[in-house]
């Protein structure tokens, strides 16, 4: 049932996308059991467990619940090994939970095939990585266009979209540059533009300032803030409190369990 809607989603893009997605989400909520309690969550984790078998069984997440409302800006903080990477992989539809539900925009990713999860990643999620992860042989514009290639956009609309996003992140004059010709900060801007290309339901930023100096890090954080101001939902994963404080709220994770949630009063 869900799959059919997803396929339909893939045919859509651009401005119509948000409208249809909202429409479909409402329909999905009517149709599917787990979404019976309608709310405005764009991401909802319910009792999520994740175990890995590395020799013995390692529990990375142990009964985590999380709900991110549309337009929110949330930081996840925790020491390494706390399970925050696993959390990110699950929300990013890169992985499936051992138990519990991970629903993104009304779709439970645990029930999806690999191909369908790829489509979820391509249309509903935008990744920003610590190491930028640009395609080395594609220039800035082509990097931003790449998700649109996989989403099936035609060339002209792709280019138009990529150029407007690169303009927005302040790289209007660097579009034809290759990643290795750009500074770390510039690369991360390209990565943010790429994450926004398909107008995803949520942007996942994994230590986005981890590989740049403090000043550049501030620039990137203000770009993310700007993105948030435009209505995008952002989930930021970091171990740096200074960075996490850019968000509206901080979710603390430790040993695979969710601890307290801290509201950043008055912060942006």
């Amino acid at each position, binding site marked *: 049932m869900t799959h059919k809607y997803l396929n339909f989603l893939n045919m859509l893009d651009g401005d119509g996308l948000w409208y249809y997605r909202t429409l479909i989400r409402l329909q999905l909520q009517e149709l599917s059991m787990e979404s019976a309690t309608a709310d405005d969550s764009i991401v909802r984790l319910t009792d999520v467990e994740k175990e890995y078998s590395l020799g013995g069984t390692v529990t990375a997440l142990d009964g985590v619940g999380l709900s991110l409302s549309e337009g929110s800006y949330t930081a996840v903080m925790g020491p390494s090994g706390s399970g925050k990477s696993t959390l990110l*992989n699950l929300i*990013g539809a*890169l*992985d499936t939970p051992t138990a519990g539900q991970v629903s993104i925009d009304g779709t439970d990713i645990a029930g999806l095939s*690999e*191909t369908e999860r*790829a*489509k979820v*990643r*391509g*249309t509903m999620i935008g*990744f920003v*990585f610590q190491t930028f*992860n*640009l*395609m*080395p*042989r*594609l220039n800035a514009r082509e990097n931003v266009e*790449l*998700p649109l*290639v*996989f*989403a*099936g956009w035609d060339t002209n609309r792709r280019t138009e979209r990529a150029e407007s996003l690169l303009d927005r992140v302040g790289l209007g004059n660097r579009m034809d540059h290759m990643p290795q010709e750009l500074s770390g900060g510039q690369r991360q801007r390209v990565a943010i533009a*790429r994450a926004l290309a*398909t107008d995803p339901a949520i942007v996942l930023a994994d230590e986005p300032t981890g590989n740049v100096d403090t000043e550049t890090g501030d620039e990137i954080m203000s770009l993310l803030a700007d993105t948030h101001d435009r209505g995008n939902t952002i989930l930021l994963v970091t171990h740096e409190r200074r960075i996490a404080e850019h968000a509206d709220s901080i979710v603390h994770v430790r040993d695979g369990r969710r601890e307290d949630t801290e509201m950043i009063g008055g912060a942006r």
Partner: protein
Amino acid sequence: MDWREGVRIAVRAIAGHRLRSALTIAGIVIGIATVVAFASFGASVQTDVVGEFQDTSASEVYVISGSGVFSGAGPPDGGGTLTAPVITTHDVDRIDRVEGVQAVIPRGTVPIASLAYGNETVSQVGLTATTPNALEDAMIEGRPFEMGTNEIVINEAAAGQFEENVTVGSTIEITRQEATSFTVVGITSGARGGLSGFGPAGPEFYVPVDPHYQTAQRSPSVGVDQRAYAQVTVVAEAGQVRGVNDRIGTYINTESDATRLAGENGNITVQSTEDVVGGIEDVLEDITRLVTGIGVLALLVGAFGIANIMLVSVTERTKEIGIMKSIGATNREILSLFISESALLGIAGAVIGIPLGLAVGYGGAVYADVGFAIPVDWVALALVMGIVIGVVAGVYPAWRAARVDPIEALRYE
């Protein structure tokens, strides 16, 4: 994903490793070039030689002392070790009376000491003695010689080899035991009955067998000395070649002077043009098959080369695969990206190998002095082979790429 985008990304990947890609496709290039070179050379020879036979002498049957043409021994024109002048005038007369025979053209070589035109002497080991009917349809200028005269007909190569061109009416001095003057009465494009082999003819001088051809044998049938030839060409009437071939064969094997004179170790071959063409084609086919086999081996090696480098490429680009998966690439799209890349390597091998092969084939054709022909079917096949090899070699590496776990891949450095 639009396939053109896939190809574009694959081209980028290949262009990113120029030297490596070039070395990878070398095997394919060599394999395809080998196959195309020999296919084009074979096609050239076939078109040239076989075409010539089929055009001018479809109705001829050759009676040859020795093992014949392209059936295992000796060059066609009498140089074989078993070749001997054993076909007597009696045999020629009898063959002439065989049903379906239009004409019989005997042919023999008259050895000479020297040949001069004006003050110029050229080296020429012999004259070709034949009958006027060998020349009737092949005159460029003048007329055939008449029997019993000192008239001579020369071919264009012979006419052009002197500083001052020989023309009809010129006189040529030929010395055997003594000097004799011959009057040039005609210029021919080439007398019938010669198995000319490859390439253009050298200088040829044609004289009537009577009185100039003096090689003789005592005919066992009639008991007198007669002119005897190593080769006789029979022109069959339209549609009669096969029958004439069989009937002459029967005569030769049963009653002929030739068989009796050749003795136990001798051998008289009766061959129609079809047999000769068939023989040439068989030889060409054998060569083509052998070389194609070698080419296929090179292609196989090339395929392993591509597969190997694609596996390396998949490992190297694990992170890129992870990135593409994180931004929405499906396994199938990753698979098709890598197969496109591998197929492009194969196509590139074919695109480089085909002209290279044609160039080598052209060189061969020029060297062998035959007209060049492009074997269109082989070129098309080579292109298809390139694509198929690329795709097949890429399947396993691409499958590995598609199965890369994006989480692991994104962590990969």
